[in-house]
C-alpha cells in the first residue's frame, strides 16, 4: 500500500465509478452522480478494499458512507490516510 491521501482516495472512487477525472471531488455525494447508485457503491467498496490492502472490509460504516467526505473521515479515523 503506497502512501495514501485524499487525492488517492478520490482517484480510487473516480476509477471505481468509471467517471471522468475531475468529476469526483471531496464535496461529491452519491446524490450528485447517477453512477453512484447501489451498484456503484459496491464498486467503490471493492476498489477501496483493494487500494487499502484488505483493510476496508472491516469498516462496517463504509456501507452507508454516501459521500466522499464520509469515506475520507472513516479512513482518517482508522489512520489509513
Amino acid at each position, binding site marked *: 500500500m503506497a502512501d495514501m491521501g485524499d487525492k488517492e482516495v478520490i482517484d480510487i472512487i473516480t476509477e471505481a465509478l468509471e467517471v471522468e477525472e475531475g468529476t469526483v471531488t471531496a464535496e461529491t455525494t452519491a446524490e450528485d452522480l447517477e453512477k453512484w447508485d*447501489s*451498484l456503484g457503491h459496491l*464498486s467503490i467498496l471493492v476498489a477501496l478494499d483493494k487500494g487499502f490492502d*484488505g483493510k476496508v472490509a472491516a469498516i462496517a460504516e*463504509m456501507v452507508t458512507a454516501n459521500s466522499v467526505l464520509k469515506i475520507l473521515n472513516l479512513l482518517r479515523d482508522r489512520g489509513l490516510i
Partner: protein
Amino acid sequence: MKVAITALEYYLPQSVEDNAALAVDNPDWPMAAIEKKTGIKSRHVAAAEETAADMAVSAAEKLFAGGVDKETVDFVILVTQSPDYALPTSACLVQDRLGLKKNCMAFDVNLGCSGFVYGLGLGGSMIESGLASGGLVVCSETYTKYIDPHDRTCRPVFGDGAAAVVLAASSRDALGPFEMGSDGSGGGSLMVADSGARRGEAPASQPVLFMDGAKVLMFTMDKVPQCMEAVLQKSEKTLDDIDYFIFHQASRLVVDNIVRRMDLPEEKVFRNYENIGNTVSAALPVALKDAVAAKKISDGDLVMLVGFGVGYSWGACLVEWGGGP
C-alpha cells in the same frame, strides 16, 4: 473424519429465466451493468407448484437410480430455508417419498449458503460417532418464491436448485477439518421478514426476501478469508497444498473478491453461476458436481469447500475427492 462423499447428484428446475426476461419486467434496470457485477446471465426457477421437497426428492432419486442402496441411508439431512411447511419437517416428507426405511433419521437444517458445509459436518459427525453408517445430505432451495419481481438486488442473483450427496464411513480421512461460525448481528442483512412467528402488525401476505448487497459483500470480504485461513491452520496446510477451491456461487463480484483477497490462481477456482445463479445451499454441491464433470477435480484431489451468507453464517472444510469409501 473417516467419512467420504461417495455420490453426488443435482436437480435444477426446467424453467430458465434469462436477463432479457428480467429486463422486460423491469425496463428501468441497467441490465448490462448488473450482469457485469453478478456474472449471471440466467437462472432456473421452480414452477409455481414445485417445492424444495419436490426438488430434494428429484435430486436424491438420481442417486438411487445410480445404484445407491436405500438400505444404507441412516439419515436424511435436508438443508433448506424454503421448506414446504413451517411444520412438519420437510426431511420427514422426503424420507417417506423416497421410500427410505423408518429407522432413518430425518431433519431439516435451516441454513442458507453455509448449509452444505454444515450438513457435511453434521452428517460426518453422525457417522464418525457411530450414530449412523451413512446417509444423505440434501440441499434444496426455492428462494425465487420469496423474491419480489422488481427487486433489483435479489432477482438477478438467485435461482432455484437442489443437490444430494451420499456420506459413508471411509478408511480414509476424506472429510475435514472444518471451520464454521456465525454472527447473528448480520441477520437483518439477508432476511425474509414476516415469515415466522415474529410478525409485524401488518404481516406481508407473501414473505419477501430482502438483501443489503453492500453489507453482505463487506461481510464476505472480511470473514471468508479468515475462515479459509482457519481451515488451513487446522489442517497444517498452505494454499498451495489445496488442489481446487469451490466457493459458494454468490456472484462474480463476491467470488472475484475472495480470489483477490486470498491471492488465488484463477485456474484453481471453479465458477458456474453464469447460467445457474446463486442457488443458496445447493450452490456448493452443484458446483462441486460440475467441477468434477469438467475434470477440474480428479480422484485424490484435496478440495476446499467454502460457504457463507445468510445468518450471517459461514463454513469451510477440506474434502479428499473420490476413491470410494
